[in-house]
């Protein structure tokens, strides 16, 4: 029902098969790396933490670009606004958890 009577919007790109496959493979690779690192510790503890964090951020970027189509759409302003709100909440979740839980470690 959204955009009914506005069939031109169907013409807008929703990504190609190629970009979906690349995104899919990337997100699997980025998931497997931390799992392997935790199950077979290659690095020191701190290095493992940092690697997991980097993988998580990359995963976030992959999701945004390959599946959420952050660059597309009629009104990118909405995308930016919601992205800022989402980032704000994500930082609260991660930062808040570290802040609260650090006392107990």
């Amino acid at each position, binding site marked *: *029902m*959204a*955009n*009914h*009577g506005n069939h031109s919007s169907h013409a807008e790109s929703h990504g190609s098969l190629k970009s979906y496959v690349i995104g899919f493979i990337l997100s699997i690779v980025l998931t497997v790396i931390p799992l392997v690192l935790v199950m077979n510790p290659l690095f020191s503890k701190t290095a493992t933490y940092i690697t997991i964090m980097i993988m998580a951020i990359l995963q976030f970027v992959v999701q945004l670009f390959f599946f959420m189509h952050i660059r597309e759409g009629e009104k990118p302003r*909405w995308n930016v606004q919601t992205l800022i*709100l*989402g980032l704000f*909440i994500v930082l*609260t*979740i991660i930062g*808040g*958890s570290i*802040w*609260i*839980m*650090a*006392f*107990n*470690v």
Partner: protein
Amino acid sequence: MWESFLEFCSWFFVTGDPLIYGAMVSIALTMVAIVFVLTKYKKWGWLWREWLTTVDHKKIGIMYLIASLLMLFRGGVDAILMRVQLAFPNLEFLHSDHYNAIFTTHGTIMILFMAMPMMFGLFNMVVPLQLGARDVAFPFLNAVSFWLFMFGAMLFNLSFVIGGSPDAGWLSYPPLSQNEFSPGPGQNFWIWGIQISGIGSLATGINFIVTILKMRAPGMKLMKMPMFSWSVFSSCIMIILAFPILTVTIALLYLDRFAGAHFFTMDGGGNPMMYLNLIWMWGHPEVYIVVVPAFGIFSEVVATFAKKKLFGYKSMVAAVMGIAILSFFTWAHHFFTMGTSASVIAFFAITTMLIAIPTGVKVFNWLFTMYRGKISFKQPMMWTIAFIPCFVVGGATGVMLSVAPADYQYHNSYFLIAHFHQVLIGGVVFGYLAGIYYWWPKLFGFKLDEKLGAWGFWLWNIGFYVCFMPQYALGFMGMTRRYYTYGWDYGWESLNLVSTVGAFLMGAGFVFQVWQILYSIKHGERDTTGDPWNGRTLEWSIPSPAPFYNFAVVPQVKETDDFWRVKEEKANGTYKEEPVHLEPIHMPKNSGLPFIMSVFWFIAGFGFVWEWVWMAAIGMIGVFLTMWARSFQYDTDYYVPVDEVRRTEASLGRVY
């Protein structure tokens, strides 16, 4: 062979409790009765065509409403059983394990399977009508949401006859909810019931955000949108930000249980407190998710029944949107007693106090709306007026709890129990009931009987105070939650008995409401005008019950209370009649796929619960096949011809 079958049954079904045998028999009899009636009156096809495959937001709303009332009954019976057990010291009505299961299911059902669907029911019944839209943005997804909720709820409810109820509290804190202390499928039922219905909740959140942003009638700027739709917008923002946290948290808990991971275990580097931290990041916004729409309902009801424009519309918008953000910054107050740094505690104590401010603003707005209004005391208004003092007391005890040093005394005591029941019953239940009474004529075409409603109202209200005021005192006297019994020497017996009497009064109120609905189906006052309350917003401009396409002509909006403007202009003769031009109406087609997909989710969920991988695999394959099938469906919509629109409108007494 027979022996091993019997052995399987005694392991698979819950055995040994006469109450549960009774429940099994009644479930079996009800199912037989339903099948018999549907077959006798040849209603299977009707059920499939009109309800199971519908994508009409109004019908989906009605199904949510029915489901939530059933769940209110189940959760209410749990509550009554608990209160009977606690009525006298040393009672042996329920043994301790059964009591644990019952307080767990009571909490989970009331929040996730009663409050949430009742809220989604109201979203569905009202929002598109208020916005001047013909359906929600994604009608198919809406049906998926409903059926996922429904099958998730059924999976959860199955646990008390098959496999055993979860019994680790409504939020399943580890380490108690880990395999070591809760073996068997009970906790898995909790996880998968919530997980499956949670997908539906998230989809509903997205659906209504898009509906509100994209499908408002022409001329309805965001700042001219009715207050209920604003509150839905706020609630949906919280849903899409908070529910993923819940999904991930309980998925990790399941990995701990199923795959032997160590996220929340006591050993192997896990940390059970991390679970509390994460679950309350969802849990705190969750209480605002359910209460903010109630605030929206009160705003509509107060304006209609005081016959005045809502006081402070802009501050109201600011308050509900402010709460959407602030609610993400208070979660740690649920575990102050965990022990953390002083700065953490100070921060969360202050944010908890701050979040009372926007709600206080709203209370004053409602009071000022009523001030010098011509108030008519119809049922929706009665519940609204009852809500205000109740919620103010509940909010004030909440601020008491936010004082961290004092919280060490209140934590997990009956003081806390009384507090959150006061905000959840006084705010959420009273609000949704006000909303149901208010919008009932729009959905069904008749009003609910006033006299029986008054019985329900007074029994609920008196019962509420009789039940929960003693619990504040019991909290101060040292009674903590989840006690299944206590001794004569504690001095708690008289207050507990009073509290139990109150619970029965509320139960009687519910019985009157059911009677009221059944009575009104036959005898209720019919609504022939479409505007039974002298309403202000667009939903009252169309006939009751609303035709399936809602608006024959999409309205042009000029003001906040646009229907009120039209009525006033008509009264003083300044209304300019614009030439009406009917056009074919674009509508979505019904589909059976949401129902089928949810059946597969149920099968998968049942497999995950029993850790039968083959069954989970069958279910998940089915889910993907239905998604696949939907991806290649191109014929999903149609146009209602002008003739049919004209005929339908004429049968409802409107001539074009």
